[in-house]
């Protein structure tokens, strides 16, 4: 099942579709259960859809299920991707193919930017989160600093700040 989703999922929107299959068609779990898992996959590091496949596999069939979910999400699409790359690498000697790929890249950059804009809208809840967001963008995007130290500073800072705000709001 997950293999089918892995192979037929393009450019995002996978989690919504997974929910439809798992919750509404197959009735393997309730929507609330699914959303709980989705939250886990989005909070913690890793590729969200891969995390989701592992979590679903674990939920349905334990350790073996988790492994099956991960492999199904990665191996078939991975092989397709490498075969596709084999073909395209040969074809890029034709000017129009490389031109078309430049166009694909430009449009796909917009796809990522759209995700970025939405993430920014959700994150921009107050001045300090905006400062953290802009600082991260300046460090990684403009100054091209290494990601590891930047995230190791910004992530704890962001979390501490959010924790402090939660407590202040609770008080």
């Amino acid at each position, binding site marked *: 099942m997950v293999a089918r989703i892995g192979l037929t999922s393009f450019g995002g929107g996978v989690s919504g579709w997974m929910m439809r299959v798992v919750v509404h068609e197959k009735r393997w779990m309730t929507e609330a259960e699914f959303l709980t898992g989705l939250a886990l996959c989005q909070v913690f590091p890793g590729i969200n859809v891969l995390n989701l496949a592992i979590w679903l596999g674990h939920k349905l069939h334990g350790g073996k299920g988790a492994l099956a979910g991960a492999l199904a999400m990665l191996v078939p699409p991975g092989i397709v991707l*490498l075969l596709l790359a084999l073909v395209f690498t040969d074809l890029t000697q034709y000017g129009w193919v490389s031109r078309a790929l430049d166009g694909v890249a430009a449009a*796909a950059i917009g796809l990522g930017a759209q995700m970025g804009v939405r993430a920014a809208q959700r994150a921009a809840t107050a001045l300090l989160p905006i400062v953290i*967001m802009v600082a991260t963008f300046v460090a990684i995007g403009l100054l091209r600093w290494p990601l590891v130290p930047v995230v190791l500073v910004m992530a704890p800072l962001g979390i501490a700040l959010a924790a402090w705000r939660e407590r202040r709001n609770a008080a």
Partner: protein
Amino acid sequence: MRPDRLLALLLVFAPLSLLTIGGGQSAISEYHRQVVAQYHWISEQLFLYDFAISRLAPGPGSLLVTLIGWQVAGWPGALVASIAIFLPSSILLYGLAKVWARYHGRPFLRAIERGLAPVAAGLILSASLTLLEASRGGWLAWVVAAGSTLALILTRVSPFMVIGVGALIFLATT
């Protein structure tokens, strides 16, 4: 086979596995910095092609790392790079999945989620900038990227459609 390259692939991607917050898109600037600027494993142009092809192919966009590993060190490289980027975060998630039901909704988890959100947003936006700077399309790339961003935000057009139109616009303006 190049054992030194396999080790380097492992050392580049494994730490990023646990720092990829907000999904695979957020580490693209770092892939570019390491693979193109630092190690010169692949050219700027090939990096952009890889990005484009990984968006055309089905499955998680982060398979870009598998493709890079393959170009750097063949099939062993693809395997090592994939393990490095996917395994650490998967093990962490698997461990957490077992205890998650107990902690879901607790305030400290909300703090983690809200605290990481602005960092993730900054990283994802950085990816767009890095890729635009790598692009050879010049002003047209910026226009198409901006147009596709707006189309996806304002309408319910499918991402696949947007990508097809992007390719056609570039072909039409050759």
